[in-house]
């Protein structure tokens, strides 16, 4: 009796394995599009990025309308939007000081996009930030922001600072600047991809009865917690680098 049950369970597990033995965390190609002579491949990353953009835009417009409409007597939603905005203001001003008000737009957009991308795994999408193309682009934009801030605050001293303490240090200084976007983007990419791979392995390789209840805890950790931390760290590091350039100018 017992052995019959055991073999039955084994057979069920083997059938389940045979059905879903390939964990699926790859970027899928949806359609090739001819774009001025070159073929551009539309992938899941593009579609998920578009969905994230549209979600953010809808939430932003709804929040703006709600705040303007309920100025005197805030509802739950408009009060939440105001709390979020004032938290963002304090966050940016707390780590960048007075110069923060020039960078609030950029840091806010960065944080919102990275956060919504990271948690989109909760809604069954493949997170756009689990594609190195996305994170490298965000990292390069941040790099341009940092270099712009450096040139703006330090002017020619920035070029002079590259040759300090001795002129032999020039290549090392250049490499330490160029390492910023690489480390920023790889950190985000590695974290989100690790979460995506773990979830795909869990869903793809275990029998059906292990998928009840337990994945919610894994989603809470890999998507919500890890995603929020990484969005925070990305925007915080960008602000720290900009504030660092500003501080060394004074």
């Amino acid at each position, binding site marked *: 009796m017992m052995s019959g049950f055991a073999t039955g369970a084994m057979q069920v597990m083997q059938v389940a394995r045979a059905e879903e033995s390939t964990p699926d965390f*790859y970027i899928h190609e949806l359609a090739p599009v001819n774009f001025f002579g070159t073929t551009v491949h539309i992938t899941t990353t593009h579609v998920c990025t578009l969905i994230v953009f549209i979600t953010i835009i809808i939430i932003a417009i709804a929040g703006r309308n709600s705040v303007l409409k309920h100025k005197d007597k805030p509802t739950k939603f408009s009060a939440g939007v105001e709390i979020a905005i004032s938290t963002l203001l304090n966050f940016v001003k707390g780590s960048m000081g007075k110069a923060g008000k020039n960078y609030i737009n950029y840091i806010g957009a960065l944080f919102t996009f990275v956060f919504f991308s990271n948690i989109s795994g909760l809604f069954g999408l493949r997170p756009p930030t689990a594609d190195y193309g996305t994170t490298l682009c965000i990292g390069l934009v941040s790099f341009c922001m940092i270099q712009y801030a450096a040139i703006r605050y330090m002017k020619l001293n920035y070029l002079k600072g590259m040759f300090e303490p001795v002129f032999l240090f020039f290549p090392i200084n250049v490499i330490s600047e160029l390492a910023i976007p690489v*480390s920023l983007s*790889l*950190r985000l*990419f*590695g*974290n989100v*991809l*690790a979460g995506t*791979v773990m979830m795909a392995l869990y869903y793809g390789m275990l029998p059906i009865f292990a998928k009840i209840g337990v994945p919610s805890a894994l989603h809470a950790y890999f998507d919500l917690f890890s995603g929020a*931390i*990484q969005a*925070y*760290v990305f925007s*915080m*590091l960008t602000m*720290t680098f900009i504030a660092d350039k500003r501080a060394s100018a004074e």
Partner: protein
Amino acid sequence: MDQITNQGLISACSAIGAGLAVIAGIGPGVGQGIAAGYGASAVGRNPGAKGDIMSTMLLGQAVAETTGLYGLVVALLLMFVKPFKGV
């Protein structure tokens, strides 16, 4: 018994290399643990500054995590992108 083919040898060595690459996770584990320990003792000494300590600790831990993630990325490349398949 079948002979080991070149492609099979490359796959096996890639898997071993991926396993070796994620040993990089030891360093960030130790580093994050040290950061968390000092964070806990700082909160014990000054409970009022819990928010600042928390954010500083998380930032430091995330930076310390980067080297481990390099190892993870190398392991994933070896396992799934298979850069040596055509060699």
